[in-house]
C-alpha cells in the first residue's frame, strides 16, 4: 500500500509538471503585409482602395445624399426618404441634421479609402518589391487619397489632414480649405508622373488621365467658391488639354453610352468595375427606379431640370418617360398590365433617369440591378472642363471645338465632324455650365458645379412650384457645405460647421 501511494504521488507530480504553461499567444495564424515584399503583396493592398471606392459608388443615393440640393436630383416626398429630403429641401446649414441617417455613409467611406491609401503610401517606403510596382502603387494610392479628399472638402468644407504619418488620437484639428487643396494638389502632381499613360495600364487600374482629370477638377474648384483663386483656372484648362492631347479618349454614340456594352470604353477616364461572377452588383437601377418598377425611388430628376433639358437623342437617352409597371410573382420580375404608366401618372409623378437603368438586369434578383461599371470621370467631362476653364481665361477655337464635340454627340451626330446645324461659335461660361449639367445629369457633378460657381440660390429659385418636396428655406451660402456627421464630432475635437468652416 505504501509503495502504491508513492507511485501514485510520483504520477501526480508528472501531471502537475505538465500543467504549466508558457502563456504565450499563438500568432501563427495572423497575417501581416508590413513588408510589401512582392508585387502580389502590393496588389493585395491596392484591392481595398478600389473596392471601397466601388462600395461607395455602387449605392448611388448614399453617395449623393449631401448633393440633393442640386437641381438634377430630387427624391420621393414621402416614405423613408426623410434623410435625402433633408438636403433636397435645404434643412441644414447651422449645424442641424448632423445626425442625418445617411450623411455618414460617404464621409466614412472616403476616410476609409484615405486610411487604406495612407497605409499603402507609408508601407511602400520600406517595400522591397520591384521599383516599377512601387512607383505605380504610390501613384495610385496618392490619387485615391486626393480624389477622396477633394470630394470631402467640397461636401463638408475643410477637413483634418490625415496622411498616415502620425498615430491616430482623435484630437486632430480641421485644416483650412486652402491647406486641403494644397496637399491634394501635391499628391496629384506626384500621381500623374508615376501613373501609366492611358492604354498602357494593367486591366482595371487607374491611369495618368484620371490623375489629370481630378487635378483639372481641383483647379476649377480652387478657382471658384470658396477660395476663388483665379490663377488656378488656366491650370485647369491645361490639365484637361493634356488629356485631350493624349488622343486616346473618345466619345461613344449617345445611344450606346449607357448600355452594358458601353462600359470600360475609351470614353471612360476611370470607372469602378463589378465582378464577372456577379458577386457584386451595381445598385443604380434600383435606386433610380420607382417603386412601381421595383425600385426604391431614391433619386429622380427635378421637374424644372427635365423641362429645361434640350430635346434630342441625349434627352431620350437620359430620361425614361414611360414608367415600367412590374410585379414579382414568386420573386421573378414580371410586367404588369399595362406594362408602363406615363410619368405624370406614375407613383412618383416624375420622369426616371434612363441613363442609369439602361443596363438593368431584371433576372438576377427581385429588384432591378446592373453589372455595368460605374463611371467616375468621363471624357465628356474633361472636354467641358477644358471648355469652361478656357472660356474663363479666353475662349479659343479648341475650347469651342471641345464644347461642340459634346453638343454634336448629344444630338446623335458624329462628334468629330463639324456640323453647322448644332455647332456653336461661341459660348458663355454659364452656357457651358448648363451644358455640363445636362451632359452629366445625375452623375454626382451638378451640385459641385453649382456651389463653386455660386449658382445654388439662383437655380433653387427656379424650382417648379409643383415639386412635391417643399423647400424649408431658400438656400444661401450657409447651405453650400453640409454638416460633419455627428459621430465624428462626438468622438473628436472637430468644430462643427458653420463655426469650424475655415477657408484659408
Amino acid at each position, binding site marked *: 500500500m505504501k509503495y502504491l501511494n508513492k507511485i501514485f504521488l510520483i504520477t501526480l507530480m508528472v501531471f502537475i509538471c505538465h500543467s504549466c504553461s508558457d502563456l504565450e499567444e499563438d500568432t501563427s495564424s495572423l497575417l*501581416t503585409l508590413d513588408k510589401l515584399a512582392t508585387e502580389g503583396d502590393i496588389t493585395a*493592398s491596392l484591392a481595398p482602395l478600389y473596392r471601397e471606392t*466601388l462600395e461607395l459608388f455602387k449605392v448611388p443615393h448614399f453617395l449623393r445624399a449631401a448633393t440633393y440640393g442640386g437641381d438634377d436630383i430630387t427624391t420621393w416626398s414621402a416614405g423613408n426618404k426623410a434623410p435625402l429630403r433633408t438636403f433636397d429641401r435645404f434643412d441644414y446649414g447651422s449645424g442641424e441634421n448632423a445626425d442625418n441617417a445617411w450623411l455618414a455613409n460617404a464621409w466614412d467611406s472616403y476616410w476609409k479609402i484615405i*486610411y487604406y491609401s495612407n497605409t499603402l503610401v507609408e508601407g511602400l517606403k520600406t517595400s522591397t518589391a520591384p521599383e516599377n510596382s512601387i512607383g505605380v502603387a504610390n501613384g495610385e494610392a496618392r490619387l485615391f487619397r486626393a480624389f477622396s479628399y477633394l470630394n470631402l472638402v467640397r461636401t463638408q468644407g475643410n477637413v483634418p489632414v490625415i496622411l498616415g504619418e502620425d498615430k491616430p488620437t482623435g484630437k486632430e484639428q480641421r485644416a483650412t480649405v486652402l491647406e486641403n487643396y494644397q496637399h491634394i494638389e501635391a499628391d496629384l502632381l506626384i500621381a500623374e508622373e508615376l501613373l501609366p499613360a492611358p492604354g498602357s495600364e494593367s486591366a482595371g487600374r487607374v491611369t495618368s488621365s484620371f490623375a489629370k482629370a481630378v487635378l483639372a477638377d481641383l483647379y476649377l474648384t480652387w478657382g471658384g467658391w470658396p477660395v476663388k483663386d483665379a490663377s488656378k483656372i488656366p491650370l485647369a484648362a491645361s490639365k484637361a488639354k493634356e488629356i485631350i492631347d493624349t488622343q486616346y479618349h473618345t466619345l461613344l454614340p449617345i445611344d450606346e453610352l449607357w448600355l452594358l456594352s458601353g462600359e470600360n470604353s475609351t470614353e471612360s477616364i476611370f470607372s469602378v*468595375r463589378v*465582378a464577372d461572377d456577379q458577386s457584386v452588383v451595381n445598385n443604380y437601377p434600383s435606386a433610380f427606379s420607382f417603386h412601381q418598377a421595383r425600385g426604391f425611388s431614391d433619386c429622380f430628376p427635378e421637374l424644372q431640370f427635365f423641362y429645361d433639358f434640350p430635346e434630342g437623342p441625349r434627352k431620350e437617352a437620359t430620361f425614361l418617360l414611360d414608367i415600367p409597371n412590374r410585379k414579382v410573382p414568386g420573386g421573378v420580375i414580371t410586367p404588369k398590365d399595362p406594362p408602363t404608366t406615363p410619368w405624370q401618372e406614375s407613383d412618383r409623378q416624375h420622369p426616371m433617369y434612363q441613363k442609369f437603368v439602361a443596363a438593368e438586369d431584371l433576372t438576377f434578383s427581385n429588384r432591378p440591378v446592373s453589372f455595368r461599371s460605374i463611371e467616375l470621370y468621363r471624357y465628356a467631362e474633361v472636354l467641358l472642363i477644358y471648355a469652361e476653364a478656357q472660356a474663363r481665361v479666353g475662349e479659343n477655337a479648341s475650347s469651342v471645338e471641345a464644347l461642340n464635340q459634346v453638343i454634336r454627340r448629344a444630338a446623335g451626330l458624329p462628334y468629330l465632324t463639324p456640323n453647322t446645324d448644332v455647332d456653336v461659335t461661341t459660348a458663355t461660361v454659364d452656357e457651358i455650365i448648363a451644358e455640363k449639367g445636362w451632359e452629366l445629369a445625375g452623375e454626382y457633378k451638378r451640385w459641385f458645379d453649382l456651389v463653386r460657381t455660386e449658382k445654388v440660390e439662383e437655380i433653387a429659385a427656379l424650382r417648379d412650384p409643383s415639386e412635391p418636396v417643399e423647400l424649408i428655406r431658400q438656400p444661401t451660402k450657409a447651405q453650400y457645405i453640409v454638416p460633419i456627421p455627428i459621430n465624428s464630432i462626438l468622438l473628436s475635437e472637430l468644430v462643427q460647421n458653420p463655426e469650424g468652416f475655415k477657408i484659408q
Partner: protein
Amino acid sequence: MKQTKFEKLNRKLLTFILIVLCSSMASYSQNIISGTVTDESGTPLLGVNVIESNTQNGAITDFDGKFNINLNKNPSELIFTYMGFKDKKQSVSGTSTLQVVLQEDFAQLNEVVVVGYGTAKRSDLTGAITSVSSKDFDEQPLNDVSQALQGRAAGVQVTQSSGEPGGVYKIRIRGANSITGNNDPLYVVDGQFVDISTVNVNDIASMEVLKDASSTAIYGTRGANGVILITTKRGRAGKTKVEIDLFTGISNLTQKLDLMSPVEFAEGVNYSEGQDPNDPTNPFYTTSELDYLRINGGEDWQERLFQTGYSTNAQITVSGGSDAMDYYISGNIYEASGTVVDQKFKKLNLRSNLNAKLSEKFKIGLNFNVGQKESTGVQADLGSGISWDPTTPAFDENGNYNFNSIKNVASGETNPLVSVQNNSRNNTTDQLSINGYLNFDITKNLVFNTSLGLNKSERHFNSYAPLISSANGRANVDNYYSTKLYFTNRFTYTLDINENNNLKIDAIQELVKEESNTTQIDANDFFTDLVTYKDLSIAGVQLASNSETNRELESFLGRINYSLFNKYLLTASIRADGTSVFQKDKWGYFPSASIAWKVYEEDFIKNIESINNLKVRLSYGQVGNQGIGVYGTRSRAVIDELINYPFNGSLTTGVAPSNRVANPDLTWETTDQFDVGVDFGMLNSALTLSVDYYKKITSNLLLDTQLPSFVGPTRQYVNSGEVENKGFEITLGARFLQNDNWNIESILSVSRNRNKVLSLNDGVTSLEVGAAIVPNLPVNPTRVEVGLPISTLRGYVFEGVYQLDEAAEGTPGTAKYKDISGPDGIPDGLITTDDITNVGDGNADVTWGWNWDVSYKNWNLNFLLIGSEGNDIYNFQRARLMALGAQQFNAVHADYLNRWTPENPSNIPSSNDGTEMLSSQFIEDGSFISMKSIALGYNVDSDFLERIGVTKLRLYGSVENLFIITDYTGFDPESTASNAKDDADVGIDYGSYPISRSFIIGLNIAF
C-alpha cells in the same frame, strides 16, 4: 519564475504527505451497533450519515432507515447528520439497538454548501452567498437553469430577453462592472467551468450564487461578475429509485399591439402622400378602393405572424447506490415551438454522475453530461413583419404570395411570410462535458483532490434562402468547434488546534486551455433549391473563411479559514492568474479577506430562546476580468470579401489594414468590492432575514473605445476608467403556518443596484459604445457618460407638435423639440445635435421576487411574482410603426389615427420630416409586476400508491406569465432587443421576440 516557486512548494508538501502517510496506523476492535433513524413522524430516513465521533468510521442508513456500525471504541459517541435535519449526538456503549429520531432543521445552519474550490458549513460562511435549492423550484415546470434563479436570489437580476423557444436570459449579479467587457457570471457545475445552456435544470440539486469578493476572489480574473456554483444531483445509497417527469403546455402572446385597420391605414397613406381619394388618377387609394377595404378588410399581420406555441418535456431519472458507490443517470427531452412563426426548438440531455469510494482514503467520481440543442425553422422578422402593408393580403386569389405590397406602401420589404415559409435553417449545438476527480485523504488532516475536465462544444449553423426569397439562392454554413480543458489540483489541510481554534488551508493550482476553430462558407447563385446548404458545390459563388484561436489561463490559489471559539471566523484568499491574451502584463493578483461574527453563539443571545441565528459578515477583496478576446491587444490585417476587387473581371484578394489600433500594454481590469451583511433567524427560522450592502469599484476598465472614422482605425482597447456599483439586497423568509395539514412559506427578495460611471479615459466625459440594434441610427440611442449609469438613453426632448398659432416657430404639424444648447453651450434657437440629451435610464432602480409556497394536505400551490421598478424602455418598435426610420414608408400604429391635422390639433406629428426617432416621444416607463409562474399540484395519497408500487405521484397545472401589470405599450416590458451579453445598451425594444403566456400540465411519478 512563479511557476517554479509553486512547484517547489508542491514538492515540499508531497514529501510531508509521504511522511505522514507512513505513520498512520490504527487498531480495531469488534463492537457492532445497529439501529433505525426516523423523522419526528416516524418515517424512516434513507441515507443518514452515522459517524463515530473523532474517527473516520461511519455508515449510512438504508431504505428502511437501518444502519450497522462497527465501533472503534466502546463506549463511544455517534453523530447523526442528515441534510435538512439537525445533527444529533448520541452516546453508545455495549451492544445495543438504537432508535434515533432526528428533528427537522429549518435554519439548516449545519447544511454543507458548496463554495469556490471546496465546501463549508452554512454557519461558517463569511461571504455573501445566496443558495437556491431544488426544493425551491421543483414545484415549477422549468426548462432552463436561469428560470430557476429568476426572482429567487437577491442581487441576481435575471431577465428573459427573448421569448423564443429555448429562451435567452440575461443574468447580472450586482449590476454590470464592465462597459464593453463581458458581464456574464461564471458558471461552475460540479467544479467545472461550463456553458449552462445545455445543463438540464432538473438535474440540479442546488445552486450557490457567490456575490461578494471574498467568495469570488478565489476565481480571480473570472470572478468579477459573480459566480454561480451548480451542484448536480447524486444517487443515494439504497434501493434504485426511478422518477419520471412529464409536462406539456401551450403558449400564446401576452398582448398584441394596437395597429390601424386596413382602411384606416389606407387613409393615412393618402394623407401622407397628399393624395385625394376622389381623384381617379390617385396612384394610392381611391374612394372605391377604400370602400372595398372597409368591407373586405385586408390582412392582420399580427394574426399571421403569431401562433400558439407548444412545449413538451420528458425526463427519466434512475438513481441509487450502496455504501461504496452511488449513481445518478438522467435523460431529458424538451421540445417547443414558439409563438412567432416559425421556429422550433429541441433539447436533449443525458447525464451520468458516478461516485465511488475505493477505500477509506480514496474516492473517485466521474460526471458526464452530453447535450444537444437544435433550433430549426426561420423566425419571422417582427420589426418589418408587423409593420408590413395591411391592405395587401398575404396571398392572392390564386393562393400565391402577394410578394410585395400591391401599392408599394408601408415598407419596401418582401411579404414577411415568404422567407419564413420558404427559408430553412438548422442550428445544432452539441456539448459534451466530462469531469473526473480523485479525492485522497492523505492523512486525517490533509486531503488532496485533483480533477480533470473536458468540455467540447460543436456548433453547426446552417441556413438556406431559396430562389423565391433570395432571387438566386443563398446558403450559409457555419461550423464552430471548441475544446476546453481544465486541470485543478487542490490540497486541503485542516487543523483543529484545539476546541476553540480551527484552521483550514487550501492550496490550489489550476490550468485552463481553450482552443477553438471556425469554418464559415457563404454560397450563392444556386440554380436549384434541391440540395440547399447540404451541397454548396453547386453554388456559383462560394466564399470560405476559417479561423483558429487558443488561449491559456494558469492560476495559483491559496485560502485560509480560521475559526476562533466557533464565534469569530476569518477567511483570506489570494489568487494569481496568468493569461496568454495579454502581451506584457500577463499576471494579476487578487486578494480578499472577510470576517464574520456568529453573534448567536454568544451567551447573551443564546439566552434569547426565540433567536436561533444572528451573524454579521464583513468582506473586502479584488477580482479581475480579462474581458477581451484572443488577439484583442493586436491590430490584425483585414481579410474580407468586401475588400476584394475585380481588376480584370475576377476578384483579386485584398488585404486591408486593421480597423483596430494595437495596444500591447493592456492588462486586467480590477473590481474592488466591499460587502457588509447580517443574517438573522428566529423561532427555529420561521422568520429569517438577510441584508447585504455592497459597493464595487471597477477600475482600469478594459474599454473597447471608438475613434472617429476620419483617423482610419476606429477601435482601440484601452485600460482606463472606473465604474461604481452599489446597492443592497434583502431576503426575507417567513413560515407562516406549519401543522399536519398546512404549510405556508414565503420568501421575498429585493435588490437595488445603482450603477455609475466615475471616469473614462483622460479628459473624455462620454463614450459611444453600444451595438447598432436599430438600423441606420446615426447616433447611438445609449451612451456611457461620466456621472451617469452605463447605459443612459439619449435623444431630443419631445415637446409635442407645432400648432397653428405657433407657425412662426415651426411648420404646424411637425414635431417640436426642446432647445437645450448650442455650439456655445447655451440655447441657440436651433434644434441641432447639441440638443440631444439624456432622456432615460434603462437600468431598474429596484427589482424583486416574491415566492409563495402553500400546502394543504395533498395540495400545493406555488407562485412567483417578480417586479422591476424605475427602468425606461426606448420603444423603437413604435417609432417604426409610426413610419420613422429608413425601412418604413407609412405609419401602421393606431396612434397615427390621432395625427395632427388643422382640424385635430393633437400632439402626434403627422409627417416624418423633422421627426426624430431618438426622442423622448418613444421613451416609456418599463416598470412591471408579473405573475411569473403559478403552479397548483396534487400529491396522490401514498396509501393508495403503495398498493400499486409507486412511491410518489404528483399531478399539477401551471401558468407562466399569467399577468403583467405595466404601462409599457410594447408587447411586454421584459423582452428587449438588447443583446443579452451587452450592458452598454439596455432597455431598447426593436423587433424583439415577445415573451408568452403558457399553460402547462404535468405529472411526477416515482417508484
